[in-house]
């Protein structure tokens, strides 16, 4: 240790000389609190990688989504800090024709950042470029792009312009989550001029109606956006936002501490002690749209026996895992739906930690002596599991040992893990999870527990006919109360069938420096409503 420090002293001396030659160093600012919102200032937000693109129709990665949320508006929007759907670019809407036609009344006097007027014609063109391959500016012309368009617009057949600010969107069959879909950052309305001018290059020339306008994107370094002074939802307090790209976790945290960034997007539980200990930092945590669980291969012995599946649910001490591995910022799952999703039923009991009961169930199932099994583990941190796969897997491994199950952990890099789990022949346990896109239950759990989703997220190969039917019915209904009833049944049945070890809903965590005010993280993960944020000087 002594040599280490000697070395630093010498290095420091060398560096002082070099630094003096250069003339200046960095500056940090600390400021007194002021009362009301202050106008102006640049907010720096950490993102861990470059966005893939800034045209919402041709991107799907989080890093793009963070920026998109500031540049674009959807026809609908999320209320601050929630997934509740509220009017966006559409002031109001009516659903007719048995849920197959949506008539939107649009906001007037709104302009895209390139000066184009926002109106029914613009929306008609936007929808057409998403559904019509013959449109010369069809979004699919950009080959190899990731997209959410088929998910939202798969059933959409066309539009009818009913007036300068009135438009109908028609579908071949009802889609109960359509309004929630439209609020997603992936469905931000893009300027027709931008699409026509730039074609397949539109991804780097964004133009929306959002609270901020695109300034520049320096690859690998940052994306800069500036306030839209005419924003229909109220002029932003900030004058600029910089999305700074910092891949390394330690560097991110240290940048936050020195104020080089104001908001840390990805907070790992291991960073919580440091954030809490720092006077100038605030931890923001709220329930997220996240499921974090272990899939059990329900068609493979011994997990084809429901008793064994229940036993493992009792055997894992979820409370302790939440408390210690996730620093208390997680909640035990009592339903496959996260708490902030529509129709979540909090009355369903969770599987409590009960070793006795677990052992007893194992006896009853004829596995009193236990068995050996393999669990696939992704080796990175994921949105729904910020501590990372291996760390969680180790805790589960040691808990299951107590009921005689010897778990072999098969650690894989994320690309391989996903490719292997998504196959009809997959028959191992696997860490699994999902982050919802729009707060709708169909988006949240149908890919995980619907019998038709083996190749998407249903690694358990769970297929209960009743549940499958309820999923289908719920999606064709646009009546909320009726939909909720279906999803409550689904939640109860899945908990009972236990195709998974239901671990926890992890919190959405961000951290900010103390001069940031008015920032409310949205459960969908993205930076929306950012016009309300301000920086004290």
């Amino acid at each position, binding site marked *: 240790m002594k040599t280490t420090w000697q070395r630093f002293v010498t290095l420091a001396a060398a560096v002082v000389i070099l630094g003096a030659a250069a003339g200046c160093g960095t500056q940090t600012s600390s400021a007194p609190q002021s009362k009301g919102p202050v106008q102006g200032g640049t907010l720096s937000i950490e993102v861990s990688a470059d966005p893939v693109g800034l045209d919402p129709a041709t991107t799907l990665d989080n890093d793009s989504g963070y920026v998109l949320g500031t540049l674009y508006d959807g026809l609908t929007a999320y209320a601050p800090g929630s997934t509740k759907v509220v009017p966006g670019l559409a002031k109001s809407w009516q659903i007719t024709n048995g849920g197959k036609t949506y008539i939107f009344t649009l906001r007037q006097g709104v302009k895209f950042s390139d000066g184009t007027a926002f109106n029914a014609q613009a929306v008609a063109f936007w929808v057409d470029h998403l559904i019509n391959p013959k449109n010369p500016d069809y979004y699919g012309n950009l080959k190899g792009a990731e997209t959410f368009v088929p998910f939202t617009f798969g059933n959409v057949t066309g539009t009818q312009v009913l007036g300068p600010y009135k438009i109908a969107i028609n579908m071949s069959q009802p889609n109960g989550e359509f309004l929630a879909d439209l609020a997603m950052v992936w469905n931000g309305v893009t300027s027709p001029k931008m699409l026509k001018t730039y074609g397949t290059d539109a991804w780097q020339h964004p133009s929306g109606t959002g609270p901020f306008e695109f300034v520049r994107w320096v690859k690998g370094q940052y994306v800069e956006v500036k306030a839209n002074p005419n924003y229909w939802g109220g002029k932003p307090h900030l004058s600029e936002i910089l999305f700074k790209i910092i891949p390394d976790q330690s560097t991110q945290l240290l940048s936050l501490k020195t104020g080089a960034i104001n908001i840390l997007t990805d907070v790992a539980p291991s960073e919580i002690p440091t954030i809490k200990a720092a006077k100038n930092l605030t931890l923001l945590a709220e329930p997220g749209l996240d499921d974090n669980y272990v899939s059990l291969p329900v068609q493979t012995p011994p997990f084809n026996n429901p008793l064994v599946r229940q036993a493992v649910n009792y055997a894992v001490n979820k409370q302790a895992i939440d408390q210690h591995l996730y620093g208390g910022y997680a909640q035990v799952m009592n339903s496959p739906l996260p708490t902030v999703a529509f129709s979540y039923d909090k009355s369903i009991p969770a599987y409590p930690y009960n070793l006795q009961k677990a052992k007893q169930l194992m006896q009853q199932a004829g596995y009193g002596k236990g068995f050996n099994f393999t669990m696939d583990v992704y080796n990175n941190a994921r949105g729904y599991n910020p501590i990372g796969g291996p760390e969680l897997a180790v805790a589960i491994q040691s808990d299951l040992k107590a009921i005689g199950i010897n778990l072999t952990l098969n650690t894989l*890099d994320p690309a391989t893990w996903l490719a292997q789990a998504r196959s009809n022949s997959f028959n191992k346990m696997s860490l699994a999870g999902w982050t919802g896109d729009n707060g709708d239950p169909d988006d949240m759990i149908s890919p995980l527990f619907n019998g038709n989703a083996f190749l998407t997220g249903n690694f358990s190969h769970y297929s209960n006919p009743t549940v499958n039917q309820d999923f289908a019915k719920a999606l064709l209904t646009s009546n909320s109360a009726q939909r909720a009833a279906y999803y409550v049944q689904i939640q109860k049945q899945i908990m009972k069938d236990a195709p998974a070890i239901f671990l926890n809903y992890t919190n959405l965590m961000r951290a900010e420096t103390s001069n940031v005010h008015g920032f409310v993280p949205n459960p969908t993960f993205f930076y929306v409503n950012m016009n309300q944020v301000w920086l004290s000087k």
Partner: protein
Amino acid sequence: MALPIAELQGEESKVTSPTSEGQRAWRHFRRNGGAVIALVALGIVVLAAIFAPWLAHQSPYAQNLSQALQAPSGAHLLGTDEYGRDELARVLFGARTALGTGLIVVAISLTIGTLWGMLSAFYGGIWDMVLMRVADVFMAFPFLLLALMIVAALGPGLVQAEIAIAITYMPVYARLVRSVGLGLKSLEFVQAAKSVGARDATIIRRHFLPNLLPTLLVQATLNIGTAIIDVAGLSFLGMGVQPPTADWGAMLSDGQNFILTSPWLVLAPGIAILIVVLAANLVGDGLRDALDPRQRHQA
């Protein structure tokens, strides 16, 4: 982070009986204070690795979440990590991983690299050309890129990382052995052995290997250290040692998240790496001095 290449000059002229040479080198090595201390330090680490289960009071894998991130104390001499695991136990067991890594990487790369270089030197001609071009191809990749690609193909993990690093070292040994081998081949006694009809295998065993030994020994000792550092680099990128394996490199990169609140989590494995790699370097230097005839009279 490259491979130290043992100096080669003068090796060609040294043709002596290996046994007496070994004794002489050992006498010389013993006089080198730093190297002897380093050898003793390595010995202690080896002992710690062997007796880790008896030295550590706790299992390095037993999580006790209520004891997470405890500062060093009587119960936990080096504190605990984020899962409440005893840091001392993990450092001790980490010695096994570290030494194992060093030895396995060196064993694989040395064996294959030596064969490779020997074939090239001994058979020459088209063999030599093809084998050396293949070595060029290997060396044309930045070693970390090559290692990352190999790990991507094999999946992340300790053994995979060891294999990947070993593959990146192989061509270095191949070249080293080839250059020593070429020098030896032209010498009279080898020519003589050939002319009386000695089999290739015999010549290689009797004459090549003993004379290669000093060079290889030096390079191998140095590579034990570089292998530990390089595998740690892969672990830092998430492509090396996977939890819960106790490994210094992985502990170091995990511990960085706690650097402001629990600095012992990076100090302990950091110092451990420093000691082992430093010792390997000092021993390697000592061996080179002892085995290199030109340096003999300069000390």
